[in-house]
């Protein structure tokens, strides 16, 4: 008899064997009893939603989209994608003002930049935090990311000529964080690339990757951003450039969320979007380039692998690079979610769960007591700095500071 050669379903939901390992590994399940867990919310719920959209469960909003369920799934089921797609498809509640503000990271960045010192001052006031908590449901414990008075884009544009002189070139998708909040990360990236003999270009037009828009129910706008970004990436790829990134979540969004959640085809550019640490590691490993580090550099570093980097499978490149720096005493922290998941942890209703999820990680950092923590994700950084008091640095910034002058 003829067997079916293969079976397929949307995000592989039908390939689920009900082994429930995703629920065992979900960071939300132990801390929030209202969340049905990835198996129930994902492949199980999907069959009911196909029967009638009325079976959509609002509790799906408690999913962090950390993708840990997808990493552990032995059957290749894209559990988090099923859940996020269901939210996109069935949840038609308009996003509240708070969620709009949190989600529009680039718009808020452009708005705040000219008044950065004032904005930073105001958002760090206790009274502002209380007002935001009460009127806006942004938890008062949260520290707002600071805005920079000058954007990274402006900085690099002024140096375009000098960058063009390098024989090898890459393009850089800097993301909202490096552009508006912490241009130093972008500058560090340029320093490291230049040390490798590579010049850095901006994309012709970069939009926010859209991850926060997806999480906050604004997927249409996210899809518009995605469309524009794919065009910009295409131009870079057509010019023979690899596009490097320093944010693990932007990277995952550009590569995986565009086709899976937003149905934006990125097949022609996907393989050219690479996290900088992976690119650098492979360059050094192949002997094509070298980095020279300070002889007296000393640091005790604990590395936290962001969930989305774990999903990409590229965390090893980041920490192997750090281990190459002489004088580094390295600890790889256990695989745990920090609990913030972008804008999720900023919301008052999620604050407690967010901190409970992160607790094992916070405790381990305290017991390791490093000089600082290394991590490729800016929102993990906010969470860990607020919750542990330790400074968190992107591996690229650590490479930059360890480079021989």
């Amino acid at each position, binding site marked *: 008899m003829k067997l079916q050669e293969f*079976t397929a379903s949307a995000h592989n939901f039908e390939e689920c064997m009900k082994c429930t390992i995703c629920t065992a590994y979900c960071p939300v399940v132990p801390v929030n009893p209202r969340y049905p867990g990835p198996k129930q919310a994902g492949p199980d719920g999907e069959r009911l939603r196909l029967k009638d959209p009325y079976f959509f469960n609002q509790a799906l909003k408690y999913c962090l989209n950390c993708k840990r369920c997808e990493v552990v799934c032995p059957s290749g089921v894209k559990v988090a994608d099923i859940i996020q797609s269901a939210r996109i498809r069935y949840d038609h509640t308009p996003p509240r003002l708070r969620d709009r503000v949190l989600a529009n990271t680039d718009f808020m960045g452009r708005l705040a930049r000219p008044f950065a010192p004032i904005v930073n001052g105001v958002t760090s006031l206790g009274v502002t935090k209380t007002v935001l908590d009460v009127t806006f449901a942004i938890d008062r414990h949260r520290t707002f990311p600071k805005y920079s008075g000058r954007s990274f884009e402006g900085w690099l544009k002024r140096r375009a000529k000098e960058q063009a002189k390098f024989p090898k070139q890459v393009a850089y998708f800097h993301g909202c964080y490096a552009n508006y909040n912490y241009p130093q990360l972008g500058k560090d990236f340029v320093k490291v690339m230049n040390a490798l003999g590579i010049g850095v270009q901006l994309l012709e037009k970069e939009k926010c990757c859209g991850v926060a828009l997806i999480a906050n129910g604004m997927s249409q706008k996210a899809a518009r951003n995605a469309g524009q970004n794919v065009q910009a990436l295409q131009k870079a790829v057509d010019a023979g450039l690899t596009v490097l990134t320093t944010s693990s979540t932007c990277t995952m969004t550009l590569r995986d969320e565009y086709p899976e959640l937003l149905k934006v085809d990125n097949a022609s550019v996907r393989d050219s979007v690479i996290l900088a640490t992976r690119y650098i590691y492979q360059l050094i490993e192949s002997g094509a380039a070298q980095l020279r580090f300070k002889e007296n550099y000393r640091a005790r570093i604990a590395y936290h692998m962001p969930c989305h980097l774990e999903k990409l499978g590229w965390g090893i490149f980041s920490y192997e690079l750090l281990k190459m720096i002489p004088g580094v005493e390295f600890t790889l922290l256990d695989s745990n979610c920090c609990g913030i998941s972008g804008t999720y942890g900023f919301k008052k209703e999620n604050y407690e769960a967010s901190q409970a999820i992160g607790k094992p990680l916070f405790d381990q950092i305290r017991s390791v007591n490093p000089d600082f923590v290394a991590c490729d994700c800016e929102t993990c950084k906010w969470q860990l700095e607020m919750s542990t008091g330790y400074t968190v640095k992107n591996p690229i910034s650590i490479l930059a500071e360890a480079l021989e002058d």
Partner: protein
Amino acid sequence: MKRNEYDVIIVGGGITGAGTARDCAMRGLRVLLIERHDIATGATGRNHGLLHSGARYAVTDQESASECIRENMILRQIASHCVDETDGFFITLPEDDLNYQAKFVESCLAAGINAEIVDPKEALRMEPSMNPDLIGAVKVPDGSVDPFRLCAANMLDAKLHGAQVLLYTEVTGFIKEGDRIQGIRTYNHQTHKSGEYYAPITVNAAGIWGQHIAELAGVKIGMFPAKGALLIFAHRVNGIVINRCRKPANADILVPGDTVCVIGTTSTKIPFEECDNVKVTPDEVNLLIEEGAKLAPALASTRILRAYAGVRPLVSADNDPSGRNISRGIVCLDHETRDGLKGFITITGGKLMTYRLMAEMATDLVCRKLAVDKACATAETPLPGSGGKSFREVAEKIWENPTTVQKAAVGRLGMAAERMQSSDSVSQSLVCECEEVSVGEINSAIERLDVNGLTDLRRRTRVGMGTCQGELCGCRAAGLLAKAHGCADRAREDLKDFMTERWKGMYPIGWGDALREAEYTQWVYKHVLGV
């Protein structure tokens, strides 16, 4: 009055028997229903679950078609919780004759079926899973109906009207006095006790097994056992029923029912002796996948949950080897006028769709014989659980903010979900995760719906009917049954039978994910639970 005396005894716990029991009980008769297994174990539970509009029969059998559409409209009213008003398409593919469409629509309209030609592109927009090569589409008021639920609701309502139901009780013979059937002899397969029950009229509603029952009574009916095989796919590929617009043939109906969809059927004549043990052959599976993929191409790569087969209870009329051209018409035999045997009626033929009409015809005859003058009211009286147009309407009638578990229960029980315990966390916790069946729903089924074992429970609640086929829910449900029946040994044996029965349906399609799942299930049961 003697012990065990009734006005009417009904043999057969399928939909015809259950419907007849309900009708008789509603007309004030004292009713006993006897079933040798569980409810809906024969053809009732082994079909598409298609709420026929009648369109399928319109060209070949106008009478059946108009019966269907009348009953279709009635069931939407009286059994809203068993019916999903999906509508249906009859599509013409390039290899089909488009001229058939005009004849088809004309015949539908003549039978009172609202058939409407839809532009193929528009049809494809309404039902994107359909074969995009289609050259014609006609929309008809098809739907899907859950036969287990429908049967259980009829049975429950019969009981609410005073009927008595004996399951797992087999008729072993008739008590005759001269040319009159006075009652039946029975054997109970659970208590292993024999019994005698008396009534002036016995109705043979045993479906294909009616031939055997008639023989026990000393009369002959020639049944035409025609096997039909079907495949269950693991989720709904389509939201609207898809049929082929041509003369009825193999595997040309795809029905979305509850969380799954079903393709079927085949039609093969089988010897009467095989009725109790029908198997799906590899050739049938091949044919169903191949023909099914012509209706909805996605079926070729969609996971299959199970294969099953039923036997159509057709009354043989001519020498047609396929059984397709035999009328699906209702046959109501008064053996007094036919064979000179008093007190014995056979109601057969027909189909799931026309069960209510069959019950009405049989009950009318029973009433005439008993000189009871009471009109049939089953067409206007809703079944327990019916009411409300949508899940949302029903769920929000019962609870202010229904939880997913409560919503899922409403999807199965309709208004009857109200009676289920669902306020505390234990009764809300899930037994079956694939179909979202809670402890409360299981307990309510055990209390109200004559559950003897896990397989009975499955027919009433969908426990074990989801993707995992009992992997996670079988042992949990067995625990609840052990508690309710106070016997763990019985539950353990029952669990073994249940899992074996689940495997039986997976065996014909044992490859890919279904095989992985079965293997995993085996680990869980053998190595983790030690069953």
